[in-house]
Structures are given as C-alpha cells and as structure tokens.
C-alpha cells in the first residue's frame, strides 16, 4: 500500500515538473490557442520562423561562446582558489566569506555601481566587460563545488606525486586534474548555466551593443506573444539540457578510462 502511495506522489511530482516543459513546446507551435480550449486551434511554424528569421540564431551561437569564455575564466580562477580554501589557514574564514559574497550581494547593486567605472575603463558596451563581470556571480558556485571536491579527495596523492619528484605542473596535470575531473565538469556546467541565463549584467554593461540570447529573449517574455516566447524558451532550455548531456557524457568517458587504468594496476 505504501508503495502505491509513493508511486502516486512520484507521478504527481514528475507531472508538475514535466508539464510546463511539454506545454511550452506545444505553445511554440501554436498560432491560435484561444482561451478556454485545451488544445490549440491552429498550429504552425510561425513562432519558429520568426525565431530563425530574426537572425537570433547567430546571437545564440555567440552567447554560447561568451558563456564558454566565462566558464573557462571562472574555472581558472576558481581552481586555485578552491584548492587554497580546502586547507585551513589564517585568513580562511575571511576568504570564505569573500568568495561567498556575490551570492548575498544583489547582482543589480554591483552592476549599477561598477557600470560607471567600466565606462571609464572603456570596458562598457564590450563583450570583454560583460565576460569580466559575469565571472563575479559565477565564481562562488565554481569555488564551492571545487572546494567540496578538493576536500573530499584529499591531498595525499598529490603529496606522494611531489615526493616522488614530479614538478607541480606535472602533478597538476597527471594527478590533480583527473582526480577532480567530475568536480570540474560539474562546476563548468553550473557556471555555464549561470552565465547563459544572466540577463541583468549583460543588459547593463552590454548596453545594447553586446547581446546574448537571454537579452533577445527577454522582451518576448515580457510581451504577450506566447508563441514566439515559447519557441525562444524551448531553444534556451534545449541548449542548457544539451550542455548537461555533454558534460555527463564526458564524465562517463572519463570514468571508463579510469576504471581501465585501475584494473591494469
């Protein structure tokens, strides 16, 4: 009896989660879906046509590129930071909080404040400025994930490697990175999503000259055109999901390699 109840709850849960997704896809194909009907009256590719014709697919590509840049840069900074934070040292609490700051401070406050500085530095209205500032909200996520992984793995293997004579670069390449790999993938994905969905920073700093897909999508969401909004959102979500699948695949490949190595030892 209990199992049946759990299953029913599970069914409700899945539908709550999956329903909007299916609905969105439906909407993206419907041209007329007047109020009380449960099924669209007229379906066509109108919404999708509009999407393709507006040239926003190119913006999509550049947004993905931009977010990839952000992800890479963030990870580069987060990696050593997380490693450092997984040890105990004198100012640790301070740095911990420091890294945590972007989560608590509203993005809007930072962006508006730094906007003028950026203009002075010539970073406003450029992709560089956007990338730079996006690192800010992305960092805490990356550091947090990597820090946990570092803490979990421990540094024995690395110490061993150094003791046996490897340089720190070799150690990093052959020992640390493979060990941390799932963490890296996870952090990479997380940062990508945050960056890709980031609207405010791009809006303010990009100022109309730098656009991401999220920026292009927003006005449609505000307006009442559900068809086109749904098309955009479907693309938006698909990119995210695709990225998730890619990272998962990379992980699986990595594990398969590792398992083989273990067996040979």
């Amino acid at each position: 009896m209990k199992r049946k109840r759990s299953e029913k709850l599970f069914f409700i849960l899945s539908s709550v989660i999956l329903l909007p997704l299916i609905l969105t896809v439906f909407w993206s194909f419907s041209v007329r879906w007047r109020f009380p009907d449960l099924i669209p009256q007229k379906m066509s590719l109108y919404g999708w046509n509009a999407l393709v014709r507006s040239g926003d697919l190119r913006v999509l590509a550049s947004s993905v590129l931009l977010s990839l840049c952000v992800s890479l840069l963030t990870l580069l900074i987060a990696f050593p930071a997380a490693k450092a934070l997984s040890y105990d040292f004198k100012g640790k609490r301070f740095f911990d909080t420091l890294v945590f700051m972007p989560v608590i401070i509203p993005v809007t406050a930072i962006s508006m404040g730094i906007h003028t500085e950026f203009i002075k530095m010539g970073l406003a209205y450029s992709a560089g400025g956007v990338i730079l500032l996006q690192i800010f909200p992305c960092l805490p996520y990356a550091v947090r994930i990597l820090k946990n992984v570092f803490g979990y793995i421990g540094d024995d293997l690395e110490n061993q490697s150094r003791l046996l004579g490897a340089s720190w670069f070799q150690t990093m390449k052959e020992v640390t990175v493979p060990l941390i790999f799932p963490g890296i993938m996870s952090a990479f994905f997380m940062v990508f999503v945050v960056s890709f969905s980031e609207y405010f920073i791009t809006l303010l700093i990009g100022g109309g000259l730098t656009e991401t897909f999220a920026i292009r999508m927003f006005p449609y969401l505000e307006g009442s055109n559900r068809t086109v909004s749904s098309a955009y959102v479907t693309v938006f979500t698909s990119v995210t999901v695709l990225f998730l699948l890619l990272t998962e695949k990379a992980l699986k490949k990595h594990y398969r390699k590792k398992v083989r190595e273990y067996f040979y030892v």
Partner: protein
Amino acid sequence: MVFVIYYGLAGGLKQSLGYIPGLGKYEITLRYYKELLRDPEFSRSLLFTLRYTVIATALSVALGVLGAQWLRSFKKTEPAELIIRIPVVIPFLAASLYTILVFSSTGFIARILNPFGLTFQGFTGEENGIGIILTFIWKSTPYVMLTVFALLRKMSGTFEEVSENLGAGKIRTFFTITLPLIKEEVLTVTIILFSFIFGSYEVPMLLGPTSPKAISVFAHHEYLDPLMESRARAMAASLLQTVCGIFIALLLLFLFKGRRIRHEKKKI
C-alpha cells in the same frame, strides 16, 4: 603551497574589484538615503520583496527537506533524481515563462478549471506576488531536495533506527534526530536561497506587478531615470538592499550558529 594561496588571494581580489567600486558611486551627503527612507514607494517595494522572499524561501526549504526525506524511501532513486534535477538545470528565465503558461488567467490551470465553471484569477502580475513565489518554489525545492538528499545519503541511518527501536514514531524521529543532523547544511541553503531570491531581478520583473516593484526592479528603474538625482537614489536603494541582505543573512547565521556554540560548550 604558497603559489596556491597566492592564487586564492587573486581570486579574492577579483571579488573586491567587484564590489568596492559598487560602493564608490554614492554622494557624500546622506540626503538621498533620507529621501529614500521616507519614500513610501521604496518601503512598499522593500516590504513586498521581503515578503515574497521569506515565503518562497521558507516553503522551498520545508518542501525540499520533506521531499529529501521522502526520497529516502525509494528503492531506485535514479529516475527520481533525474527528474528532480530538471528544474535545477533550467534557467529561471524559462521557469518564469512556465509560470505564465500554467498559472496565468489564460493559462493551463485556468483552462482545466473552466469547463467546471470555475474562474481562475491568475497569478501573474498580481499584488501578492504569488506567481513569483511559485516560480521560485518550482526551481528551488528540487535544489534543496537534491542537496539535502545527498547529505542524507551519506549519513548512516543508525541513529534513526535506534530511535525508532526505542519506540519513537516516525515523525518524532524526524524532528528530534534527522533535522538536527542536517541543520547546518539546511541553514547554508536557506541563506543562499534567501539572498538569491531577495536580489533577483528577472523573475519579479517578468511576473511582478508594476507596483509595488521588487527592490531590484525599483533600483534599476531609478537608475534609468535621466535625472542625475535619480542615479544617486538608485545607488542608495541598491546599497540599502545590499545591507539588508547581508544583515538578514548574518542574522540567520547567528541565530542558528549561536545555538551550536552553546551545544559545543556543553560537551566540554
């Protein structure tokens, strides 16, 4: 190890570059702050934002924790985990659209109820911000569930088994044993959620009413005003928002950590 710490510092420096200039744009007079505090629009925004943040956070955490507990009773957790990960992965801009599609006055729920002669008012753009709350719940509850569940999985169930063996009912066990064990993690998640929702701009912008605005929206609105004065007001508003957020986060932290400190002293 020195190089590692050095890079850590660099990371921290990146942070200070981020938020100190943010503070550098306010005038030397406190006039704007006083104006702002007296502005009824501002206080309404603040209250509104606080209100939906608290409700959304509380509900998400409560549901999430319960959900995590429920997940433990599953034999095969894989499919559940997969489905629950979906809202976490989906950007919340998209989630806002979902709320519109499902919950607005012409949305899915309205259509289902309609043949029964029930009218459904719709949750978008309305004064209580229920739509905003729902969107955040949809996205945050699974996040809480996953985080807490991961934690629960690592814990061994021995304490709970003992408790039940000694006769405590399932509910009592949950409150006296399970909850205190996960308290710290739950607290962290709560703070994160709260800060995030409090400072969120996109969701209330899309789903919120024109008045009262959420604070982020309010600040941004002021910022765009061509009057130079309004810029200062916007900055003041943002700063107040930041201070508020930090204050509440610290409050929550001390409220709960304080208890722990007392506990540890007892042990000694």
